[in-house]
């Protein structure tokens, strides 16, 4: 894993504020059954822990969610909002293959001329965006907006037993800026293991298998998840490995963590991570029951919710943790400060 510690570069990086947006449409398990899902509503809860998820309206796309989350973050950023030097959008569900969703968000937010780009890291998307943003701040940017947004409902085959209940839509954002040494972001680490690239993937619609009437008819433009048990166990092992490597690098253990904000993949995965880490579930931020798995946005949305609900306090050590298709993984150690709590509180609730 490649670990970045701002202090080693003589600087600090903090999250000034966060934002999040979930689309209004609430989809229950019973709604999925009515759409043809092959599981009953109770089975979905038993297998995933998910009761509801939010889906976009027909006229909404990923950039719309990203813009709403980004706008909420910038609204609470004070003067830093006009010092924005860069925008990073993590997504695996772009509005278009080209141009980037970041360009659409740039226009939607009315930003001046500045570099914007997408990155793709599946469910580790927010951690990857956070890393890119933190490195940009460490090398001179005054403020960087990192957004993770996904609309996986557009890629869902509701008749697929393995994936029908899992995915929701949403976006989360964080505005990063310089900080005093050893405040805010203490360390962030990323890794990937491409041998798992075909474990969770969308077979058609890319350059490997172009979209055609046949790929649509056979739903090959939908998410396919292979070897479910292996994915489940690999996700747990990938996240624990990332967490331990990161904590080792700063001479800490799980016992030193006040909060774990993991990727909300499946309730069984969250419980297994907590059990293996020796953390009580009370220290794990979980919102999967009501929002489902929002892919790259889960950690950002869960962090924003936890800040807004005042669950996180100044001085708390928070471990952000994610693993996703690819396989990708990321972990970050963040110390919450009073300014972040005050800034997040200024925005409208999602």
């Amino acid at each position: 894993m490649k670990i970045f510690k701002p202090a080693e570069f003589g600087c600090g990086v903090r999250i000034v504020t966060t934002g999040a947006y979930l689309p209004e449409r609430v989809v229950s398990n019973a709604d999925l059954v009515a759409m043809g899902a092959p599981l009953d509503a109770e089975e979905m809860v038993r297998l995933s822990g998910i009761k509801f998820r939010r889906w976009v309206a027909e006229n909404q796309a990923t950039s719309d969610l990203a813009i709403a989350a980004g706008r909420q973050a910038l609204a609470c950023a004070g003067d830093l909002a006009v010092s924005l030097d860069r925008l990073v959008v993590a997504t695996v569900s772009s509005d278009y293959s080209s141009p980037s969703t970041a360009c659409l968000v740039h226009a939607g937010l009315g930003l001046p001329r500045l570099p914007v780009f997408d990155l793709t890291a599946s469910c580790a998307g927010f951690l990857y965006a956070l890393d890119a943003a933190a490195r940009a701040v460490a090398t001179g940017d005054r403020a960087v907006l990192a957004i993770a947004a996904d609309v996986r409902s557009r890629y869902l085959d509701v008749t697929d037993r393995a994936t029908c209940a899992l995915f929701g839509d949403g976006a989360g954002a964080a505005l990063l800026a310089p900080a005093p040494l050893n405040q805010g972001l203490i360390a962030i680490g990323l890794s990937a293991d491409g041998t798992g690239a075909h474990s969770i993937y969308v077979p058609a619609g890319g350059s490997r298998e172009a979209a055609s009437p046949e790929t649509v008819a056979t739903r090959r433009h939908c998410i396919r998840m292979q070897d479910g048990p292996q994915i489940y166990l690999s996700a747990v092992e990938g996240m624990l490995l990332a967490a331990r490597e990161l904590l080792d690098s700063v001479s800490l253990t799980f016992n030193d963590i006040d909060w774990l904000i993991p990727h909300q993949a499946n309730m069984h995965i969250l419980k297994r991570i907590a059990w293996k880490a020796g953390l009580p579930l009370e220290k794990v931020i979980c919102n999967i029951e009501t929002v489902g798995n929002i892919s790259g946005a889960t950690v950002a949305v869960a962090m924003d919710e936890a800040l807004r609900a005042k669950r996180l306090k100044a001085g708390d050590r928070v471990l952000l943790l994610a693993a996703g298709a690819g396989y990708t993984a990321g972990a970050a150690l963040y110390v919450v400060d009073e300014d972040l709590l005050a800034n997040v509180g200024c925005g409208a609730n999602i």
Partner: protein
Amino acid sequence: MTWDECYRSVRELVLDYATPESDDAPLALDSLAVVLLVEAIEDRFGLTLGAKDVTPERFGSLGALVRFVWSLVS
């Protein structure tokens, strides 16, 4: 724990997810059932299983699963 105790215990857990006609009959567990069965086995036997432990062969029949669990607890 004896082999018979191990067998009865694993069979009891498997019956929550499948009704095998014999020890060698395919269990035909779907992936999510395997996940839940892994957790149940860990709880019951105090084991920790990793991704490499969960193979189609080991979870393919009741007999194979009992032999696998027995290899870990005996």
